[in-house]
């Protein structure tokens, strides 16, 4: 039964990496700046999920902290980009 779970874990990792590649493609050919920001958002989220899958497959808890950090910094960066697109500066005086 463990073999089936291993295959499922591999499949999910592969899906997340493929999703990262697709987000990267959209980031490179997105016509407007907001497309690129949206693609970056999807990219960091899929990276976080890939790290979680690494944590599941190697059954260690180190990857969990990294995933939490990626979620935090990704949120901050997306908010900063959106604020910049909205008003031209990140922190308004």
């Amino acid at each position: 039964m463990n073999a089936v779970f291993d295959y499922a874990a591999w499949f999910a990792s592969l899906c997340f990496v493929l999703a990262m590649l697709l987000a990267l493609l959209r980031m490179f050919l997105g016509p407007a700046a907001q497309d690129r920001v949206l693609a970056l958002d999807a990219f960091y989220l899929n990276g976080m999920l890939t790290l979680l899958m690494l944590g599941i497959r190697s059954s260690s808890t180190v990857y969990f902290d990294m995933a939490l950090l990626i979620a935090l910094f990704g949120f901050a960066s997306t908010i900063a980009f959106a604020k910049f697109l909205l008003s031209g500066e990140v922190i308004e005086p």
Partner: protein
Amino acid sequence: MNGMELPLWVTIPGTLLLVAGGLLTLIGALGLVRLPDFFMRMHPPTMGTTLGAGCVLIASMLVSSALEQHPVVHELLITLFIVMTAPVTAMLLMRAAVFRAQRKGDDAAPPTGAQAVARRAQDEDPLVGRPAPPDEPS
């Protein structure tokens, strides 16, 4: 796995959750690449954000609980954080996109605020799909 045998109540739901999460995230990324408009492209990645991440986090909780022989709920932190931050991100990005499209004079941009009220008054009733009836004096 490091030679440790997982019990059956972890492997079956874990397998299903991992496959479902992977497929949902992949479909979301495909939509991000293939849809023609930014306002349409806004939608599909949220599938990965909510359902995909939720599935993987529940599977991770199951596996680490089974390996450590007691309930592990660390992953709820990430779930809570994502659930709290995803709407904020989407709303700010959408406002930025609408602002930029309107500044460019793009017709595809949805109208906002007073503009929307004015267009709705002069156009047609969007709920019914035909011109709104004129105001009757009461």
